[in-house]
């Protein structure tokens, strides 16, 4: 597959502050994945209970217990991921990472504070997230509270090399329609 996208100008963005689009997309992926895992967990529990007791368990969306467990699960998902290596699944996919405001590695305490502060960015009509656009360092409300920042962890230089390598594999058309004479065979 050749995508045709050439990350030419992105060779030096690793470690730079990540923009709002990448961050929100990563968050959306995380919400989808964590919610999916939660639903899968409920389904497994339902199946096991049904198998062991022959009783059908129905989960109600309005059930307070389910809500509390869901919130706990989300807390665990984000706080654990950030404290382990500063990135969740969605962030890993989009190549962004949470670090301390000075760029050093995140501490577990900050990961927990960031997770707890994350809902505040929602509660204020999304204004906490809007800070990413207007704040000099692209830091949202929960970043400012936890003393964190989000940077690109994607090695665009390696991507550039992979891109060039793919291009090098493809025989280039030469005038006259002849295959370029090279001593090596490229598949």
């Amino acid at each position, binding site marked *: 597959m050749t995508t045709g*996208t050439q990350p030419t100008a992105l060779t*030096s963005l690793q470690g730079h502050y990540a923009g709002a689009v990448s961050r929100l997309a990563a968050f959306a992926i995380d919400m989808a994945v964590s919610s999916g895992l939660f639903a899968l967990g409920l389904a497994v529990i339902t199946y096991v209970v049904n198998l062991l007791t022959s009783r059908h368990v129905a989960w109600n969306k309005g059930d307070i217990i389910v809500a509390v467990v869901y919130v706990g699960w989300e807390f665990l998902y984000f706080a654990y991921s950030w404290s382990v290596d500063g990135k969740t699944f969605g962030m890993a996919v989009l*190549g962004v990472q949470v670090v301390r405001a000075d760029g050093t590695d995140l501490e577990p305490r900050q990961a927990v504070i960031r997770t707890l502060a994350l809902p505040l960015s929602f509660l204020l009509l999304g204004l906490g997230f809007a800070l990413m656009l207007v704040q000099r360092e692209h830091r949202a409300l929960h970043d400012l509270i936890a003393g964190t920042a989000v940077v690109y962890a994607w090695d*665009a230089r390696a991507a550039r090399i*992979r891109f060039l*390598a793919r291009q090098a*594999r493809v025989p280039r058309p030469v005038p006259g329609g002849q295959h370029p004479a090279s001593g090596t065979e490229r598949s």
Partner: protein
Amino acid sequence: MAILDTVDPRDRLRSVGKRMADPAEALAQRVAERVIDLVVQALDVNALIQRVDLNTVLDQVDLNEVLKKVDVPALVDRVDIGKIVDRVDIDEILSRVDIEALLDRVDVNALMARIDMDALIEQTDLGAVIAQSSGGVASEALDAVRSQFVGLDRFIDRWAWRLLRRNAPRPAAPAALMPAGTEP
């Protein structure tokens, strides 16, 4: 008077002087050679050299002038480099080199920055090797997706900054992640 006009009385003296001078000169030559031999034998050359201040002597030598007179290409032509290299024990030399200290003095990052990776990959089979090792469909798709999102990030940032009418540029990265030699 006529005879006296044609005969120079000093000619006779000259003739006598010449007859005496030749043997005397030969004698002086022999005496000088003998004396020099005796002096050289009596001299302690090593002690003499020790007393010579070679630095002072060398200070007075204009090496540039000397080198101008040397035909270096002709000199090099006369040197058998192969024979010299054969006599050099590379292993012995390398065993004396402190590789760690040497590497500490090399700025590898600066060295890498000087490498034109694009040209390297295009002109060698390194590209094929990298492609075989890392060219999965997933990584290609991921590179593409990330590139698109980074492009969108920069587009949105640019417009947001323009709408806010801010002229001062944003800091690129946190201090600890700022590449060496760049301003925050």
